[in-house]
């Protein structure tokens, strides 16, 4: 999943398994030695001692020194951040070189212009840093894929914080007792079962929207076709 970032950094590996401890430590060492160069060479000893049990501690200190907003517990997220950080530094150094290579000018018309998000480069470090601070501000968890994070933020704002949502909030906001709903399966874990129930409710919500759209379509067609008639003269009561 980090293929393109590794490529941008001219790393010899095409991709790597973030859960492989060896690969991971090698990558961190390589990034510091070749790209980030935050510590002086003699200060890198702890980070270079990859077989030591003290390495994780050294790594946590390292990312703190780099002012990484993450605590290091989520390896995927921290890997993504550190690669992004390295690319930002790399770009800063070689900015002159890249200057000539501006992408083809984007046409301002068409759907691109209508959708402000279409022009955002989500992999840019600035956007990511922005997302991270938005997440901590809104108190929602981050996802490795910045687009997913962005979508989550957009949903929260649309459903909870926008003017429309704030007006409607009084009608909504029914407190739901999850135990009233059947998940339809038993995961043998109350927390998982509750999660299942929540997923069911979210799914039903989407289905309801779809069914409402279907009904609206039928009603739209009815305005063209419907012409109900009755003729009392035809009626006859039996015996």
């Amino acid at each position: 999943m980090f293929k393109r970032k590794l490529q941008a950094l001219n790393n010899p590996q095409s991709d790597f398994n973030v859960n492989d401890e060896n690969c991971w430590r090698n990558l961190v060492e390589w990034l510091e030695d070749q790209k980030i160069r935050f510590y002086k060479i003699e200060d890198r000893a702890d980070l270079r001692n990859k077989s030591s049990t003290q390495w994780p501690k050294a790594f946590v200190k390292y990312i703190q020194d780099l002012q990484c907003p993450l605590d290091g517990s989520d390896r995927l997220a921290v890997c993504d951040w550190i690669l992004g950080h390295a690319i930002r530094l790399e770009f800063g150094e070689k900015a002159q070189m890249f200057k000539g290579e501006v992408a083809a000018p984007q046409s301002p018309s068409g759907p691109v212009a209508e959708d402000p998000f279409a022009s955002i480069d989500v992999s840019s470090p600035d956007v990511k840093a922005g997302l991270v601070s938005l997440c901590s501000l809104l108190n929602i968890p981050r996802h490795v894929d910045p687009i997913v994070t962005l979508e989550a933020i957009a949903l929260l704002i649309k459903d909870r914080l926008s003017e429309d949502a704030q007006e409607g909030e009084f009608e909504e906001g029914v407190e739901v007792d999850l135990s009233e709903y059947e998940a339809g399966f038993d995961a043998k874990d109350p927390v998982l079962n509750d999660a299942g129930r929540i997923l069911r409710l979210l799914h039903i919500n989407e289905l309801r929207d779809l069914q409402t759209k279907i009904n609206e379509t039928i009603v739209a067609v009815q305005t063209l076709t419907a012409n109900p008639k009755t003729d009392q003269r035809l009626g006859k009561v039996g015996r």
Partner: protein
Amino acid sequence: MAATVREYKEELKYLNKLSDNCWQIKKGFVDNMKVEGRFYVDSKLEKLMFEELQQACRSKGVGGFLPAVKQIANVAALPGITGYSIGLPDIHSGYGFAIGNMAAFDMSNPEAVVSPGGVGFDINCGVRLLRTNLTEKDVKPVKEQLAQSLFDHIPVGVGSKGVIPMGAKELEEALEMGMDWSLREGYAWAEDKEHCEEYGRMLQADPNKVSARAKKRGLPQLGTLGAGNHYAEIQVVDEIYNDHAAKKMGIDRKGQVCLMIHSGSRGLGHQVATDALVQMEKAMKRDKIQVNDRQLACARIHSQEGQDYLKAMAAAANYAWVNRSSMTFLTRQAFAKQFNTTPDDLDMHVIYDVSHNIAKVEEHMVDGVQKTLLVHRKGSTRAFPPHHPLIPVDYQMTGQPVLIGGTMGTCSYVLTGTETGMAATYGTTCHGAGRAWSRAKSRRNLDYQTVLKNLHDLGISIRVASPKLVMEEAPESYKDVTSVVNTCHDVGISKKVLKLRPIAVIKG
């Protein structure tokens, strides 16, 4: 094939009580049983079942219908049956299959059959429930006028004719399209389709498989209620057992007024069944299909006759949905006129619409393996559990609503489907009270004036086309609907949500 005649005491050896409300019919009770039988009864209903069997033993199997237990067993002897032949608590003798019998046939078995007797003559006879936002208080003062207005809008009785103009071409379209026809023509609301079993249209319907005779009978009858046990009732919510499920159905208080329409496919469905029985007798001879009872005429599902019947049955089912939709339209008009408002403002939405007499292709788990079955439900109702993909989105969390019509003057119930029922009865439960007495016995033993007076004393307004036949439908002629419903609830094949009490009835 002659039925084995045994002493009552001998017969009892084949019947075994498995639990409080469930009985087993062992193989050997009748010849050739492929699977065992099961029936669900409480102590009260149990007595009726056994009296009927005892009676038949005394008369040595001569005359009248076979007792329901024998009929369940004969169905268990049909080729390709899977699981059990199941009797629901409201079971009583019928043509071939008992009314209240569910039997499923394995589609992957080339020998498996479809039987018109397993569907019944009134194809897709069913019940529809509408809600309103009125309360008993609003309706009581105008109850008589409303009953009269409904009677004026919905033609009832044998030989009645409908007020919706229909030509031969419209009928063909209605047979093919079911409720989509009603929608297109503007007799139904978009939401009605959403809250109808099968979305009000069986896609395999083929009007070309319906005989000219059947169409001729069906043409003038569209939008008519019919006779027999069919009725339209104004009811009020008497009891709410499950608040959450009731709320999902738009019922939030006792005394809320609802409307129940119980009707089917009229003469058209009857003719489709009759035509098919003739064809199937031929097919049975050709394919050498053995059955215990001549009334169990059937054909292999994949034979020409089997397929023709299923396509014609689907068309008749579509007719029944158009019929109930047309009556819904007329009912909405009657109410709107009476209260000088619109059906929309009265919130007259369809809660649900169930089929009682139908055969459907469904997916079920059989011994842990998913199989495609042809499920015959005669006098029984589909009751799918929560999260089943074929039930409306609004009922995904509660399970499918099951509408149990009582009889004149008694209560009706709304239940929901359960997982237990899905496993035990292929998602099937009871359909109503079920006859306890034959029509002839009711006529002999009851006086129509007393029956009408009793209803009047209960505060029920009644409009009826043929008062001299009301004793056939009197509460005394039927099993106790509360017993039937409680048995289903206790066994767990469906759960109680609402109890409804009638305040006005119109019938044939």
